[in-house]
């Protein structure tokens, strides 16, 4: 099988995010960069399918020079090769998906995996736009996947139900937590990854311009919350009663 995993480099979940004074972006100093956690599930699923059925896993990433580390991480986990698309900073989802689609169209594929969203911009659009641009079906936010007879069967949780969805390959699947438990890269894996091929392309090589349809005009810190009230006292029952009273009479939420 020919499997593709799209990956994005993002700040670690424990990172403090500070907005630059002019609102043009975030302060990158001191940030630890990692593979988007949802993309890890996609890489892992692609590797498991390859290990079962044979084939190749190609990692594709849009990102600045530092994103190469994330591609190497996926190669160290076991992917065979990579494509790194640069020169598309501050891209919207449509431009990012267009670049990914252009790169993927040059590779035969059965399933393209994406994370269900990236934990930096939280946009959750790229996988579906990519599916549309590739002209293939999508199943998003997948927690369980079976592949047989050139078809996928996927479980997708929605509010109050689970959907079982079937689609013919080729297709795009976006991975949700629960799909699998991603492996760590082994030391020999990390050594081997250094020699695996990564094709570095500029967005312009695919005819993608920086003329974005949605623009991040301004960033700002979250609204600050007023200081809270610590309910004092020794008796849990008294404090609990006071809390319930406040929720009822002051906050009016119960």
């Amino acid at each position, binding site marked *: 099988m020919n499997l593709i995993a799209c990956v994005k480099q993002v*700040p670690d*979940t*424990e990172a*403090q*995010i500070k*907005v630059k004074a002019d609102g043009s972006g*975030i302060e990158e100093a001191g940030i630890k960069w990692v593979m988007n*956690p949802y993309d890890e599930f996609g890489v892992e699923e692609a590797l498991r399918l390859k290990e079962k059925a044979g084939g190749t896993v190609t990692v594709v990433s849009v990102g600045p020079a530092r994103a190469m580390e994330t591609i190497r991480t996926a190669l160290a986990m076991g992917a065979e090769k990579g494509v790194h698309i640069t020169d598309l900073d501050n891209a*919207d989802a*449509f431009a990012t*998906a267009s670049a990914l689609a252009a790169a993927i169209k040059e590779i035969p594929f059965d399933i393209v995996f994406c994370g269900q969203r990236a*934990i930096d911009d*939280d946009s959750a*659009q*790229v996988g*579906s*736009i*990519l*599916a*549309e*641009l590739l002209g*293939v*079906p999508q*199943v*998003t*936010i997948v*927690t369980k996947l079976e592949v047989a007879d050139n078809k996928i069967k996927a479980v997708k*949780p929605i*509010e*109050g*139900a*689970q*959907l*079982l*969805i*079937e*689609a*013919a390959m080729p*297709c795009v699947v976006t991975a949700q*937590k*629960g799909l699998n438990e991603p492996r760590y890269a082994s030391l020999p894996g990390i050594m081997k990854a250094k020699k695996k091929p990564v094709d570095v392309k500029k967005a312009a090589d695919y005819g993608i311009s920086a003329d974005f*349809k*949605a*623009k991040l005009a*301004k960033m*700002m810190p*979250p609204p600050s*919350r007023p200081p*809270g*009230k*610590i309910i004092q006292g020794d008796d*849990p*029952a008294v*404090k*609990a*009663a006071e*809390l319930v009273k406040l*929720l009822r009479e002051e906050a009016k*939420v*119960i």
Partner: protein
Amino acid sequence: MAKGVWFVAEQRDGALRKVSFECASTARKLADETGDEVCAVLLGSGVEGLAAELGKYGVDKVYLADAPVFAQYQTDSYANAVAKIVKEKAPAILLLSWSVLGKDLASRLVGKLATGMASDCVELRIDNGRLVAKRPMYAGKCFGEITFASDPQMAGLRPNVFPVAENVKAAAVEKFDAGVSDGDVKAKVVEVQKDTSGKVDLTEAEIIVSGGRGMKGPENYAILEELAAVLGATVGASRAAVDAGWRPQSDQVGQTGKVVSPNLYIACGISGAIQHLAGMSSSKYIVAVNKDPDAPIFQKADYGIVDDLFKVVPEVTKAAKSLLG
């Protein structure tokens, strides 16, 4: 010149979901500023009767495609139908709810319409006749304002954030031929397994009672379930509790779980790791119960109790029960 504020109504099993009224009310507010009409796109099977209900929330016109192929949401049938009517009528603004199915449809539409969209918005306004969307990023560690260079200007509305306001309008129904057949559905829903517990999803819950590492084990969540039952709340969990296998993954609140905005979030035995705070700090009111006075969760909390949660929570349940009956 593109005109009109549109939204896609979300129905399930023939009933409109609350997010549809949130979209309708928001569309009305925007349209009153731009001097436009509010139009809804409604897809389903035997759903014509729902149009009047949309009219209650300010909808002038409903574009209806009623056919068995739309009985169940499926990406291909819904996206093809909405794209067809949107391309034909060219609205300026297209809103969808950022529910699980709403975001699947919305994102596919961005591809079909080759346009821009702001996901998961919490505030929308008109500036110089154009839409400006405000949304949390990095799970709420910061916010961004999105502007649009193409039409339709698309935005996904975070559930439970935008107010619902009655404003009765005609909601004239115009049926359209979506030109969609079963053969167009490439990703087929073959089974729907309903959760019979009746539990409201965390993303749509008005009250959440959440437990973390301080719960000490899966069996102790019973005290949170009891409190939740009294308050009509949904039980959530921190990543630590989910990773320990105490609670299902679908219960996780945080940057790698669900990002939630309930009216009330009660955090029990949750210290407040930054990835957790990111997922719940847009809650309207936050309560923290933790025996560690230095736990970071207290910096976000409106009300805090520094004590043993195993003593406090059952007392809160008792007090709430005597108040609420």
